C-alpha cells in the first residue's frame, strides 16, 4: 500500500502553489476575456458581409480551429519570435497563442448567437423604423447574448483546462509548479493528484453553472 504524504509537497511550497494558482487563474481569465473581445470584433466582422473582412477572419478561425492548441503555444513561443524578429517572453507568446485560440471559438459563438435569432425579429424591428444600431441594441443582441452564454461558459471551461499546457513553455502555472515540486520532492503521486483535484474544485462549479444556464435557455 502506497504511503500517501501530502504534507511533504505542501509544507514549504505554499508560496509556489499560491503563485501557480494565481498564474493559472490569471491566464484563464485573461485569455477568456481577450478571446471574448476578439470574438465580438471578429463576429461583427463576419456579420458585416464584406469579403475583405470575412476572408481573413474565416482564415484565422479555421487555422486555430484545425490545429492543436499545444502546437499553437509551442509555435508562438519558438517560431513567432523568429518570424517577427522580436524576442517574446514565454508568458507573452503563450498568452497570445491561448487568447487567439479562445478568440476563434468566441467568434463562432458570437456569430452563431446572432444568426440564430429568427429572421422575423429582424424584419419586425426594421418595419417599426429602427435603425441598424437600434435594432441590434434593443432586439437582437439582448436575445443573442442569452443564447451565447451557455456555449461561452463551456468554451471557457475548456480554455481553463488548456492553460495547463502552458507548462511546456515553462510558464509557472499550477501544472508547471507541480512539475517543479515533483523535481524537488520526488512525490509525483501526491503532487499530480493534488493538481487534478485543484482543477476539479475550480471547474466543477463553472460546469454546473453552465448546465443551469443551458437548462434555463431550453425552457
Amino acid at each position, binding site marked *: 500500500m502506497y504511503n500517501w504524504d501530502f504534507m511533504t509537497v505542501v509544507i514549504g511550497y505554499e508560496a509556489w502553489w499560491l503563485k501557480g494558482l494565481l498564474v493559472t487563474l490569471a491566464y484563464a481569465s485573461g485569455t477568456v476575456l481577450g478571446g471574448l473581445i476578439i470574438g465580438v470584433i471578429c463576429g461583427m466582422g463576419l456579420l458585416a458581409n464584406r469579403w475583405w473582412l470575412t476572408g481573413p477572419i474565416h482564415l484565422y478561425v479555421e487555422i486555430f480551429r484545425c490545429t492543436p492548441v499545444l502546437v499553437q503555444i509551442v509555435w508562438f513561443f519558438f517560431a513567432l519570435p523568429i518570424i517577427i524578429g522580436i524576442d517574446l517572453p514565454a508568458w507573452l507568446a503563450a498568452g497570445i497563442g491561448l487568447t487567439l485560440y479562445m478568440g476563434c471559438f468566441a467568434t463562432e459563438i458570437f456569430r452563431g448567437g446572432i444568426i440564430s435569432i429568427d429572421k*422575423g425579429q429582424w424584419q419586425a424591428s426594421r*418595419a*417599426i*423604423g429602427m*435603425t*441598424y444600431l437600434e435594432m441590434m441594441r*434593443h432586439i437582437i443582441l439582448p436575445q443573442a447574448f442569452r443564447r451565447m452564454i451557455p456555449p461561452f461558459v463551456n468554451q471557457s471551461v475548456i480554455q481553463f483546462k488548456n492553460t495547463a499546457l502552458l507548462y511546456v513553455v515553462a510558464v509557472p502555472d499550477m501544472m508547471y509548479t507541480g512539475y517543479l515540486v515533483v523535481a524537488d520532492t520526488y512525490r509525483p503521486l501526491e503532487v499530480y493528484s493534488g493538481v487534478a483535484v485543484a482543477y476539479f474544485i475550480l471547474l466543477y462549479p463553472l460546469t454546473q453553472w453552465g448546465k443551469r444556464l443551458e437548462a434555463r435557455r431550453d425552457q
Partner: protein
Amino acid sequence: MTNSAEDPGRPKLELTDIRKNYGAVEAVRGVSLAVESGQVVAIIGPSGCGKSTLLRCINHLEEPTAGKVRLGDQEIDYSHKKGLPRGRALARFRGRFGMVFQQFDLFAHKTVLENVTIGQTVVQRKPRQEAEKVAREFLDRVGLAGMESRLPRELSGGQQQRVAMARALALSPEVLLFDEVTSALDPELVGEVLEVMQTLAREGSTMIVVTHEMAFARDVADKVIFMDQGQIEIEGSAQEVMVAPTNPRLKSFLARFHGNGGQGSP
C-alpha cells in the same frame, strides 16, 4: 423629412413601375398602384406570384430593383441608386408604414406592453409614460387589456397577432401593410383578427392587405388586386374582380376558394 400638408389631388401612396429581381427570378415585374387615403386595398393571387415581395418593397424591407415609391410628399426613386435614403432617414421612412406579418414576429424577449412601447420610445423618442399610455389604449382596442405583462409565448396565435397590430398602430402609421396575417392561425382564431382589421378599415385607416381570406377582400376592400407572375393582372372594385370575374386565371384561382369566397362575412 417633411410632412407638410398633403396635396388633396394626389393619392396618399403611389407605386410606379416597381420591379424586384432576385438574381434571375423576377418576383415583381412592374407594378404601379395608387392608394387613396382611407382606402383598403386587398391583394390576392396564387402562391409565389410576388404579393409579399411587393408589400416588402413598399416599405423598403426589400430594396426594389427599379421603380418609385411615393408616400405623401416623400418619394424614393430606385432608378437613381445614388440618391437613395440610407441609415436613419431610411429607417424613419419605413417607420411611416405599419406592417403586420404572417408569423406575428413579436419581440420574444419583451412583454406585451414593451412590444407596443418600444417603437414609440426608441424610434419616436416619446417619454416612457406617454408611450405606455398609448400602448395601453391600443391593447385595449385590440381586446387585450390585462395582458400587458405577459410574454409573447404565453399568448395564443390570435392574441399575438393582435399585439402585433397594436405594436404597429401605436406608431400612428400612415399606411398599414398586412401580409397574410391570418394564414398562420388556427381557423377559430381567424375571426378575432379579421374583426380588428375590419374596425380599422371602418375607422378610415389606409390599408394594403395581402390575404387569402376571400370573404374579407370582398366585403371590406375598396379595391381588389389580382396578381399573377409578378404583375397586376386585374384591378377593380371587389364587385368587379371577385363577384363577376371574366379572366380565366382569376376564375380558376377563385374557384379554389369557393368554399369561403362565395358568401358570408368573416
